[in-house]
């Protein structure tokens, strides 16, 4: 049994997680075969899936397709197919995996994906989203709706930012009414927003449990297991029930004093997406050192809730707009990300920071050298900088990454022995 297999917790929530994801794929497959439920493509980050829920529409997440292909070692073929049609070696590999798979008819489960009733680009931060969704609309001959979310230039959105987003939400509703022939159901919308707020509450509490030592779960590797249901079922009762179960199981682990590792040695904050094609190999490199991620920025792509924000069923439109504008890592500016990481290190008592530079994703990666400079020089936090990719297996050099990780942990070990390693030290 490898260190990773020992570290991986297998509780009831994992069965449930699998079932929920299969359930989603089954709904997509049904949509593909019968035309109902209507399916809408959208992005994960800071989205308004609550609005779709009000129409009984099922979300298609191209990012999840790409992720699933990558983690199942199926991404290279579609990536090559996409490059064949003109995508560059240096375009985001998520886009290439998704579009290549679409054109070749590859799906992660082998089931069918429906043609979207609407390609709905919730443009939150990443400019690649726009290109990706324009291409999806073009290649599938489907209508495109762009919801432009102003980037967070300062600490908070202005009232004009909020008004702009809300007006576009109303236009989206009109468009969906037109395309689905269904009426917008306001009560269902509020209900969806209420579900989201409950999911967010449980999810935040789970994340806060990682402040304990030992941490009951890995906020990078295990968080990804939870992210599936979070994105697909956030606005549904199934999601609420799932996250209550997950919270309960995690609390039980804490009560039993059980951590990811029997003896947790290092606590880390992770920045950047994981290398999905080498997910397990990467995790092994942490497990070897009993190093646990206690917080990660990647797990806040869909939403940043651990600092208190919740959707609000009493103000559904406003809170959905605020979620899109302010409460996800993608639409927050780069310096706000520094601050988020700094808080993680302090409040989650971490020993160090790992920056995983992903060549595909300039949203995450452009400027990570400056980030490293800030954390090492300005704050004196041990920081390791690694480079690979999130979906393209050609950019992962296992031996090199492993060597650098080992050297990093050896360094931490020495500081620990010398008594100079302080958790949460800044």
């Amino acid at each position, binding site marked *: 049994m490898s260190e990773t297999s020992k570290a991986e917790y297998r509780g009831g929530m994992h069965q449930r997680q699998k079932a929920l994801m299969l359930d989603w794929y089954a709904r997509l497959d049904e949509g593909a075969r019968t035309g109902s439920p209507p399916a809408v493509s959208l992005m994960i980050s800071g989205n308004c899936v609550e609005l779709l829920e009000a129409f009984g529409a099922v979300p298609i997440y191209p990012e999840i397709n790409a992720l699933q292909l990558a983690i199942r070692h199926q991404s290279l073929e579609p990536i090559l197919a996409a490059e064949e*049609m*003109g*995508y*560059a070696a*240096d*375009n*985001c590999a998520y*886009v290439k995996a998704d579009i290549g798979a679409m054109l070749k008819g590859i799906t992660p489960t082998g089931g069918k994906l429906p043609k979207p009733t609407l390609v709905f680009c919730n*443009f939150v*931060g*990443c*400019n*690649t989203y*726009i*290109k*990706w969704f*324009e*291409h999806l*609309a*073009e290649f599938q001959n489907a209508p*495109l709706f*762009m*919801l*432009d979310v*102003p*980037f967070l*230039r300062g600490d908070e959105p*202005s009232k*004009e*930012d909020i*008004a*702009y987003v809300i*007006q*576009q939400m109303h*236009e989206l509703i009109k468009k969906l009414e037109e395309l689905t022939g269904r009426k917008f159901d306001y009560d269902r919308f509020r209900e969806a927003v209420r579900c989201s707020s409950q999911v967010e509450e449980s999810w935040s509490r789970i994340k806060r449990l990682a402040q304990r030592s030992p941490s009951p779960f890995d906020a990078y590797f295990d968080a990804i297991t939870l992210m599936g249901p979070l994105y697909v079922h956030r606005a549904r009762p199934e999601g609420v029930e799932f996250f209550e179960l997950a919270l309960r199981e995690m609390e039980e682990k804490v009560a039993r004093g059980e951590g990811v590792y029997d003896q947790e040695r290092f606590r880390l904050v992770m920045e950047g997406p994981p290398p999905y094609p080498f997910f397990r190999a990467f995790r092994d490199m942490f497990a070897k050192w009993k190093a646990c991620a206690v917080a990660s920025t990647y797990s806040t792509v869909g939403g940043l809730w651990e600092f208190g924000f919740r959707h609000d069923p009493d103000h559904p439109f406003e809170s959905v707009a605020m979620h899109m504008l302010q409460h996800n890592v993608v639409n927050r*500016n*780069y*310096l706000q990300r*520094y601050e988020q990481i700094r808080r993680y290190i302090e409040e989650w008592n971490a020993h160090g920071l790992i920056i995983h*530079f992903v*060549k595909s*994703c*300039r*949203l995450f*990666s*452009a*400027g*990570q*050298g*400056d980030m490293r*400079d*800030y954390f090492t020089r300005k704050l004196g936090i041990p920081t390791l900088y690694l*480079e690979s990719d999130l979906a393209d297996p050609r950019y992962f050099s296992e031996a090199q990454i492993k060597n650098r990780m080992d050297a990093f942990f050896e360094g931490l070990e020495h500081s620990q022995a010398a008594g100079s390693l302080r958790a949460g030290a800044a």
Partner: protein
Amino acid sequence: MAQEIERTFERFSEILQDLTFTEVRRWKEEHPGKKSIAYFPVYAPLEIIHACGMLPVGLNGAGDRLDIQYADARFGSFICSIVKTTMEMGMTGHLDVFDGMLFSSICDSARNLCFVFKRNFPQMYVDFLHLPHNPSTSAAADFLESEYRRLQRELEKLGNCEMSPEGLHRAIVLYNQNRTLLQQLYALRAERPELLRTSELYAAMRAGNFVPVETHNAWLEEVLAGVNLRAGKRRDSIRVVIEGSFCEQPPLDLIRLIEEAGCYVVDDDFILGRRWFTEDVPVDGDPLRALAESYVNRAVYSSVRHDWRNPRHKALLEKVKRTGAEAVILLIAKFCEPAYFDYVLFKKELEGAGIPHLLLEFEEKAFTFDRLRTEVETFVESLLFV
């Protein structure tokens, strides 16, 4: 006169290569206490800066004139050159002459650069403009107007001044003139390419990034008058549209090379922000509104401006037809993701219409082009001698 115009073009190319920003320094000496505001490509509402009594300056990287010593440690692999050279200019004090720096929502790299600038150069006013990506909604112009108002307030604070609507009107008139002059030069080049080389037009246009618009207008008038006196001789060349250099700029030598290899460039997207509108910005009504509304409804297509009402690949095809071009050169900066993505649909569209095209990748910091020369020559030959 003919010699004079040659000298003028030489001067323009000196100005655009001058990393000490002599023209900007001179302006600041002549206008004590006044501010200069640089902007990263592609577009910025220069009229607002001008109307605040400030000098807007278009930055386009440092080309091959600056060794990257520090910026690589901030922006690692897979990032375009202009982001790095701009960072390097900042870290080596080249940008000290500027009081502020504007960025906008063109791509992820440039956006993160904005905030890295904020952290590294706290003495500078650094701001990010969100230029809307959904022009289909009537709310876009309202939003952009508010964004411009915010910029106005920030500039007023910085300059301790007040911008008047009349001042903004005057600025719009001046920049409308500027755009008209540039359009006239573009039209002249398309019609009589033997009179005005693209490298010359480019230098004349880009030199305007460093001087007040009034001065630039005078220069452009001079150029118009001067080139009309030339007696050029037509060469065997193919008519091409260049697309993809909207942000990072190809080295001047590369532009020359393309021409020498036998291309008459009939349209291009160099320094596109200076030619952003398809019509004059209206001078009646509220001027901020007019600027915002023009951005949303009367702007040129570009890989950094998204408007699905008129998709860019269709617009490129339109342009090819309108200009009677025989081919398209997709001249793309290395690691420029917006250009890479758009290439896919451009290619599909051009192939569908049977229009030959050539993809060339460049870096602004490159200075040898042997491989590119061969590629262009082969391409031209394949079209000339069929």
